[in-house]
């Protein structure tokens, strides 16, 4: 499996506060990877750095062996990387349809965009009859579907998903993870950043564990699931 995204020795932070320390990770083409850790360990900072919203202090980020460390977010979307941010961050005053079409802002081919819109509505049927509703009036689960749909409309090769489960009942999260699995099945690589370790590990091929801004563990999901440290600290019992 060829490497799609490679992060090597990245350190990042904000004005005086460093959060990430020499983080390295790899995402293969079509792979599903989970990034785990408690609140405030640097998961979102890592995502922002990979999506280009934050410029790293040290280290390199490569996309298909091309250095994109200093490339801005808008260009990374055109390369095929798309981040579905934490807290959904929809354009609340615009309709669901406008939000989805904004997802395809970077694309010029109208035919492809309409085809992808149809694919999103198949994946999330609940959105079909709410296309003309103002996005801000949707329920939590529906807003999350719209956010993922908006991400898919960019026709990504790699989709980042930040805290899918936050604010959603476990059953809703489960349904969304099944949809993400289906997206992954269609060849889109997925990186899921989650606090809800239990749910995401059963969907990801591989996983990384972050503590205090450092990668402390890496491996196949099954191995992590069985690992005593994970069970004690993160599996709640």
């Amino acid at each position, binding site marked *: 499996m060829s490497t799609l995204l490679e992060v090597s020795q990245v350190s990042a932070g904000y004005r005086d506060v460093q959060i990430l320390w020499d983080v390295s990770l790899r995402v293969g083409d079509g792979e599903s990877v989970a990034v785990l850790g408690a609140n405030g360990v640097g998961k979102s900072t890592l995502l922002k750095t990979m*999506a280009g*919203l934050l410029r790293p202090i040290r280290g390199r980020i490569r996309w298909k062996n091309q250095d994109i460390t200093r490339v*801005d*977010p*808008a260009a990374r*979307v*055109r390369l095929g990387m*798309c*981040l579905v*941010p934490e807290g959904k*961050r*929809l*354009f*609340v*005053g*615009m309709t669901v349809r*406008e939000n989805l*079409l*904004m*997802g*395809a*802002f*970077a694309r010029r081919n109208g035919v492809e965009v309409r085809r992808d819109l149809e694919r999103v509505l198949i994946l999330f049927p609940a959105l079909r009859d709410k296309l003309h509703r103002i996005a801000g009036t949707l329920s939590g689960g529906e807003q999350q579907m719209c956010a993922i749909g*908006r991400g898919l409309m*960019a026709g990504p090769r790699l989709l980042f998903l930040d805290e899918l489960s936050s604010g959603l009942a476990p059953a809703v999260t489960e349904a969304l993870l099944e949809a993400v699995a289906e997206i992954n099945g269609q060849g889109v690589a997925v990186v899921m950043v989650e606090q809800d370790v239990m749910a995401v590990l059963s969907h990801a091929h591989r996983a990384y564990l972050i503590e205090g801004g450092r990668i402390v563990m890496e491996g196949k999901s099954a191995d992590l699931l069985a690992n005593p440290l994970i069970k004690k600290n993160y599996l709640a019992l």
Partner: protein
Amino acid sequence: MLTLELLINGMLLGGLYACVAVSFSLIWGVMNLINLAHGTMIVLGAYVSFMLFRAFGLDPFLSIPVAAVTLFLLGYALQRFVINLVVKGSVFMTLILTFGFNLLLVNALLAIFTADTRALTPSYAGLGVAFGDIRISYVRLGVFAFALALTYLLNLFLGHTRMGQAIKATSFDQEAAQLVGVRIRDIFSLTFAIGAALAGASGPLLGMLHSFSPVVGGTLTMKAFVVVVLGGLGSVPGAVLGGLTLGVVEHLSTLVLGSGYQDAISFLSLLVILILRPTGFLGKKFYAELKA
């Protein structure tokens, strides 16, 4: 009958206020930037029309596109090379930056056009139509029509064009807009340029209704703020409603208090609105956060 005529004239003036306010609201809504030079940019548009009128006798209504393009270019350059450097700064900084620019623009106009008051009086300025004993001049009707047309054009642009949607999206969430491929720097420059163009276009309209000089911009900016707060930030229909209301309130107040109190009334109404209902009629939750 006097009150009816005041009511109509108030509404006609309100159309211009709406047009002046909607461009101010666009820039504030998208970039959280209050442009204290907005009024003077309108005055600059009026002077462009004044030069064309004096040199070639061009009718003020025809000079609107020229004024709009001039301000579009000035606006784009100003945002691209100056304001973009500071736009993420605190409310202190952006207010004072635009005040500094306002100072520069006013003095430039003073140097070129001196402080004399000017007016744009097309040949048909005196003519008008009469309903019973109410006289409404063609110029006022023309200004009202153009003002609403410009406002409608902006609404059309925002609602139905790719760039318009990108501007609206950026006004709701800058970071999310970047994540779908929008280049914020370009959108900010385009937004400021469109706002400036609309301000420029309202210059000739203003010039036909009132006499103007380089220093009248400040009051216009404050009027724009009153209308935006009244109508609600980021809402074009809100700006129209706010503009019409302010126009009528100002005109009717002359019945009670005499003509001198127009400005005082608009500022007092601003204070009352801000205290009672900061979101205005149709606005989104008010922009109250103070960027540290």
